[in-house]
């Protein structure tokens, strides 16, 4: 596949988006951070808001100086060499940008880690990445006794949720955590030095400044971003400084004139996830805008004060977050006044959710598409154009996209095929996994595992995950389509669809639905089936319907079909 691929979507860029991506103005993320710090000095960069509304802020200059000190701490106190891995396992908060930018300035590689990981998952990720320093939330310090001895971690740095808040609010929040919620465990004896981040910064300030980040180049490794992928075991996608820098510019192209330094973006999605990492943290730091960090978006009520107290202009979210917000009275009655648009990603955005959002807020949800392996943005919906329902939009500038069949031959226009992506945002491969890399990355193309169709204008629509497709008597059923149909029922809060083994049809469609608590009418299996009969071809209608109180979800709120499938496997193994 070396021939040129057509880009039918360039016309849709309109006048404002350049079809070719210019090289980034920066050599590395550290360069970008330094430049933005100088340019925006006194402006507020981050405000962290806890559920009761208490908050703390850092200016661009403060983040710059603190991350410099952290870089000195890493290089001169922890004696890390450039390229060493630093694991950061923090919920959204003011310590996150300080630790992460500090790691980049030290020339180190960031290993983003989910704070809710179990000790086993932590051990796997730290051993696999070879992380030498761990920055972790003090709420999870109790897991370390088991983890640290089995890893190469030599230094542990603790940061709190109210870290860098003004002293009285910090004391109050910490007091509430300690005495009321009991969420601050004692730190076990680990056999390695443990410091709080303030102490680390104090040490760093007394050490020589680190300046050799100036030697970083776009091809240098910036992040190991772990992803479950299709095989189950988490593997680290190697993203370079150049990948992230390119993707920042690609997101900015998508936002065009709607993204400025005056913006205020709500960051309720976790920053350790690549979506918020690039779209919220990096893009808006580059712009000189303000990030409102919410440590935990669950329950959704935790976001209330952040939305009420700040003139939020942008929100990033996933389908479940938008749905959750709109089901809150305080949100539906008083939607944010200054909002320009929202960006959806992570999982398919349901039509019903997008339409309701438009009605309630008067703004659009622009659906984008991306994956960890592409830092993450691949395609987006230009904000100036009419909404194309269900479309993930057109590829970002500088990106090539092709849809292929099982023989890796391009499919005819309008037909469904696996989506392959090539561009400056594509990872270098999986860390220490040549076999996995070979399966996913060929000649610069990423095999996404998503099945898509492209319309004549180049707009893409994801039909489904290749592996989630249900094969009913030889017909392809895409769970998304059935879920979308189900979520249009008033009584249905959310839905998931999977395939289950069936003697007659090979596989059969099974639907899981959750009752909407705001609707008095109870869902019945009969109603669900009747509704689907009306809107879907017979083979797509669920054979079985299961009513649940909740559905399994990932940390960012993606509904996990794989967990439901695992339940089904167990069920059928027992029944057989």
């Amino acid at each position, binding site marked *: 596949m070396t021939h040129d691929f057509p880009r039918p979507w360039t016309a849709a860029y309109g006048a404002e988006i350049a079809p070719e991506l210019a090289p980034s103005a920066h050599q590395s993320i550290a360069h970008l951070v330094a430049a933005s710090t100088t340019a925006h000095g006194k402006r507020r960069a981050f405000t962290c*808001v806890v559920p*009761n*509304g*208490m*908050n703390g802020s850092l200016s661009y200059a403060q983040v710059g100086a603190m991350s410099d000190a952290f870089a000195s701490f890493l290089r001169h106190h922890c004696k890390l060499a450039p390229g060493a891995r630093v694991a950061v396992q923090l919920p959204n908060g003011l310590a996150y940008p300080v630790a992460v930018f500090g790691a980049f300035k030290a020339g180190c590689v960031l290993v983003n880690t989910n704070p809710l990981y179990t000790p086993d998952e932590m051990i796997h990720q730290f051993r696999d990445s070879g992380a030498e320093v761990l920055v972790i939330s003090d709420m999870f310090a109790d897991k370390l006794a088991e983890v640290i001895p089995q890893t190469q971690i030599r230094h542990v740095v603790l940061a709190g949720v109210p870290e860098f*808040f*003004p002293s*009285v*609010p910090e004391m*109050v929040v910490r007091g509430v955590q300690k005495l009321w919620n009991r969420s601050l465990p004692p730190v076990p004896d680990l056999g390695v030095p443990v410091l709080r981040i303030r102490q680390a910064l104090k040490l760093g300030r007394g050490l020589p400044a680190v300046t050799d980040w100036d030697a970083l180049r776009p091809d240098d490794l910036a992040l190991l971003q772990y992803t479950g992928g299709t095989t189950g075991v988490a593997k680290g996608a190697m993203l370079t400084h150049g990948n992230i820098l390119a993707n920042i510019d690609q997101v900015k192209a998508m936002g065009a004139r709607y993204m400025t330094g005056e913006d205020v973006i709500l960051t309720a999605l976790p920053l350790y996830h690549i979506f918020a990492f690039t779209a919220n943290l990096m893009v808006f730091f580059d712009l000189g805008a303000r990030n409102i960090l919410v440590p935990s978006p669950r329950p959704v009520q935790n976001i209330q*004060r952040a939305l*009420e*107290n700040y003139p939020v202009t942008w929100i990033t979210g996933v389908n479940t977050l938008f749905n959750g917000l709109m089901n809150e*009275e*305080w949100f539906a*009655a*008083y939607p944010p006044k200054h909002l320009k648009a929202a960006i959806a990603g992570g999982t398919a955005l349901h039509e019903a959710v997008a339409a309701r959002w438009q009605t309630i807020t008067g703004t659009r949800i622009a659906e984008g598409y991306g994956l960890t392996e592409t830092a993450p943005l691949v395609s987006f919906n230009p904000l100036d154009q009419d909404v194309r329902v269900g479309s993930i939009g057109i590829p970002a500038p500088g990106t090539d996209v092709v849809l292929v069949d099982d023989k890796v031959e391009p499919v005819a226009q309008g037909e469904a095929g696996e989506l392959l992506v090539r561009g400056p945002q594509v990872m270098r491969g999986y860390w220490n996994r040549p076999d996995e890399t070979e399966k996913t990355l060929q000649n610069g193309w990423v095999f996404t595992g998503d099945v898509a169709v492209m319309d004549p204008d180049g707009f893409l629509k994801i039909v489904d995950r290749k592996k989630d497709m249900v094969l009913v008597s030889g017909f392809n059923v895409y769970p998304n389509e059935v879920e979308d149909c189900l979520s249009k029922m008033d009584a249905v809060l959310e839905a998931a669809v999977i395939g289950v083994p069936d003697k007659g049809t090979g596989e059969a469609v099974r639907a899981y639905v959750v009752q909407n608590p705001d609707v008095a009418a109870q869902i019945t299996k009969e109603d669900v089936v009747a509704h689907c009969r009306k809107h879907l071809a017979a083979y797509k209608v669920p054979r079985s319907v299961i*009513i*649940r*109180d909740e559905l399994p979800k990932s940390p960012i709120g993606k509904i996990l079909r794989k967990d439901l499938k695992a339940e089904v496997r167990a069920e059928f193994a027992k029944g057989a």
Partner: protein
Amino acid sequence: MLTELETTLLGVMMMVIMLGMGASMTPRDFRIAFRKPKGILVGLLSQFAVMPFLGFLLAVGLGLPPALVVGLLLIACMPGGTTSNIFAYFSKGVLALSIMMTVVSTLAAVVMVPVLLSFYGGLAGVPAESAIPPANVAQVLVVLLIPTLLGMVLRKLNPNIGATVELIGSVMGVVVILFLIVTWVPRNYQLLLDTGPAIYAATIGIGLIGMLFGFWVARGLGQDTNRSRTISLETGIQNGPLAVLVITLSFAPALQEDLLLIPVLYSLFIVLSSTAITLWYRRNATREALARDAAKLGG
């Protein structure tokens, strides 16, 4: 009974408590809550219909002397106390409903308390010299509304200060009761021993029976068990220190002793009875949560 300094101190502490109570929400929270007012209305009903009536029945049934009747009626007519929020939290109740009921009943109290007091006072045949002048009650409550509203605005304008003030207010709620214990009990030790069982029955009974009725009124009006437990605590737990303040501001020191007896005793005993009820409610809440989980797994 209480010295002038103590009365002033009590007034200041009440101001801080009300400031903290106001700071537990913003004006917008208040408007949002009234979009679905059923829970709050049920709470108001049990607060201002059930409790005063119970107070009246107890007063008449136990044959209390007029000064004690006034004290008991005043306690029965008071709005919810801020300590109810702490108990709601520990009983795994609906904290937001508890806070909202406290604030709403405090606002409504400006009108409701004077009206209810003169109504039940008249019915119980309280002589004019013992009756609390309705204007006085209204005045005290209006004065206390100022810090309440100020607190709400403060929470909106500066959440860091607002939430800190809320916390200080909650702590002050406990401090006031300790203050009453420390200043009043040692000096009235003998009085406590001399006080008859009827008075203790009235004092402890009004809180416990209020909680019992609060629960069943809420259940009867379709609230779920968890919300009903919250409404129950809210109904039984009255703003005792506020009643003490109203009396000290309305009567000359010589007249205060008998009038204050029930409000002070109530403020002390309600802490004990609420703690017991809270432990019981907490167990019920846990049991129900476990049953729900079990049903989920079975389904």
